[in-house]
């Protein structure tokens, strides 16, 4: 059943409507609820595939559903429609306005109503796709404050990597933090790249979600064997690579590859002079779990991340 989560009228003959698909057993069933959320950033589309697969598959196998599945494919419909990361017209990052305010401006009101609808879920997936600049292996990022509660879920989600990071005051305005802070466990998934859909990653997460649903007693249908993720909780384990000069980045390696110290990851070149400005070599041995996809770089632009191992 498709329902309206929140609606606001716009000035010229249009309403902003955020919808969800609720799938639940026709009669009876358990009381558990899982919510699948994506589209906070309008340029991150990887979650669209996951929502599409879950919605279609669960309707096809409705007899195996023993709890409630809520699917929210577009928290920022304007952003998705206009290829805009933030909220168009406001130049606001939607993932910095939570928990919102029911008495606040339109966007704060939307944020508050969205949270109100989701709070109480037994598990929430907040699916992102890094951004248009970087490609990521499927991973779950967890604030250290919520590590104990979330890691057991994340281990079963069929991702390659769990990154437990330090607390950061700025991140307290995010959707996931706001839910975790009130006791609704929320996993932040980052996978693939902005403005594209990597179907293999979408399929991987789809299977992970079904597996978790099975473990939670929401699903009695087919189960999948999930990957054992690499888990990192020490800040010093992750090595950040930043561009030392502005130019065009040409990558030599792909995300997910293992690197030895000194391996060439890519070059920053100047098409005007035909010269190589900089060769980027692995400063440590490890796993390249993030790589830059967008070729134009400024000095400082993130080129990749390596997990030391």
């Amino acid at each position, binding site marked *: 059943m498709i329902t309206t989560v929140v609606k606001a009228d*716009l000035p010229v003959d249009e309403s902003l409507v955020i919808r969800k698909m609720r799938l639940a057993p026709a009669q009876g069933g358990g009381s558990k609820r899982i919510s699948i959320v994506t589209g906070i950033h309008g340029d991150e589309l990887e979650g669209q595939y996951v929502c599409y697969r879950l919605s279609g598959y669960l309707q096809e196998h409705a007899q195996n559903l023993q709890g409630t599945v809520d699917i929210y494919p577009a928290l920022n419909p304007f952003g998705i429609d206009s290829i805009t990361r933030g909220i168009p017209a406001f*130049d606001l990052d939607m993932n910095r306005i939570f928990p919102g305010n029911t008495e606040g401006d339109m966007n704060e009101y939307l944020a508050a109503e969205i949270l109100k609808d989701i709070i109480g879920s037994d598990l929430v997936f907040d699916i992102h796709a890094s951004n248009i600049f970087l490609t990521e292996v499927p991973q779950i990022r967890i604030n250290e404050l919520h590590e104990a509660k979330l890691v057991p879920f994340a281990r079963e989600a069929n991702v390659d990597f769990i990154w437990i990071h330090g607390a950061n005051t700025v991140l307290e305005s995010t959707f996931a933090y706001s839910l975790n802070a009130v006791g609704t466990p929320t996993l932040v998934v980052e996978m693939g790249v902005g403005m594209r859909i990597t179907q293999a990653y979408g399929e991987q997460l789809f299977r992970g979600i079904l597996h978790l649903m099975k473990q939670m007693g929401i699903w009695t249908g087919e189960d999948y064997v999930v990957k054992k993720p690499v888990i990192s909780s020490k800040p010093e384990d992750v090595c950040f690579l*930043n561009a030392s000069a502005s130019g*065009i980045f040409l990558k030599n390696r792909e995300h997910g590859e293992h690197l030895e110290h000194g391996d060439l990851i890519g070059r920053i070149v100047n098409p005007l002079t035909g010269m190589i400005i900089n060769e980027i070599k692995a400063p440590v041995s490890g796993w390249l779990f993030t790589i830059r996809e967008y070729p134009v770089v400024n000095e400082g632009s993130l080129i990749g991340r390596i997990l030391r191992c």
Partner: protein
Amino acid sequence: MERKTIFQIRALYRDDFRVTGFSFGHGERAVCIVGSMRGNENQQLYCCAELVRKLKALEEKGCIREGREILVIPCVNPYSMNIKKRFWSIDNTDINRMFPGYSEGETTQRIAGGVFEAIKDYTYGLQFASFYMPGRFVPHIRIMKTGFEDVELAKKFGFPYVVLHTPRPFDTATLNYNWQIWETRAFSVYTTTTERIDRVSARQAVEAVLSFLQKQGIVDYSGFEGYVSKVVSTEEMVSVRNRRAGFFEGKANAGEYVRKGQLLACIVDCYEGMVVDQIYAPLEGTLLFSHAEPKVYENTAVYKIIPETEDW
């Protein structure tokens, strides 16, 4: 006056990215004044240009006090200003959400870090700031409640209001917040506008800054004496919201004193022209902020009122 490059990045096809500063006088790092950080902050840039002009004249007359250095950085983000984009040209990040910055980090972290390194040791820090909501303000000084704020000092600008603001999580990465944490006495100066230049309020702001510098013994200047400032916190302000979306027809502007029940604005249907909402003042007071866009979304804070109080 010495013109100097505070921070620089080489670009591929554009001219180098430069943050330029203008210093006046020599000695102790007395005050740093920062202008636009976002590509639409024309008024903030204009205020700094006026300030540079005035300080240059004061320096030539020997009116910068001995042993005091003043630094003005009119623009931290010329790249975005020149292409009329609000945030950073490639990744749309906001430099004023990157402080104190990080010299080994991403581009805007490096810019924030490079600028902050150059300005963190000044006794006073002033930033010509803008608000994300489109509208007009009564000129005021805004300070964050960090435990280091100095309200009495803020009154010395002589603006009608000093606004005390409780920081939200994202405020902790702003210049003002970090200046305070690094023990610079930091103030945000709000004039009436952001994109459009309002010469009258720019002049008022520049006079207020020079008056403050005079009171702190940094320059010799006689000009604007200003108001006895009223201190209000953002929690005390009353937001007035429209219930319906449509054309916004304002009947009152920032700075006006309004009575309870006074009509402030009408919302007009964008297709049929009829009034669909009327907005009345819920209480007596002064309008600190008024919406200034042709259209408005529903439930927008179109006015902010500072309530009338007995001590005023």
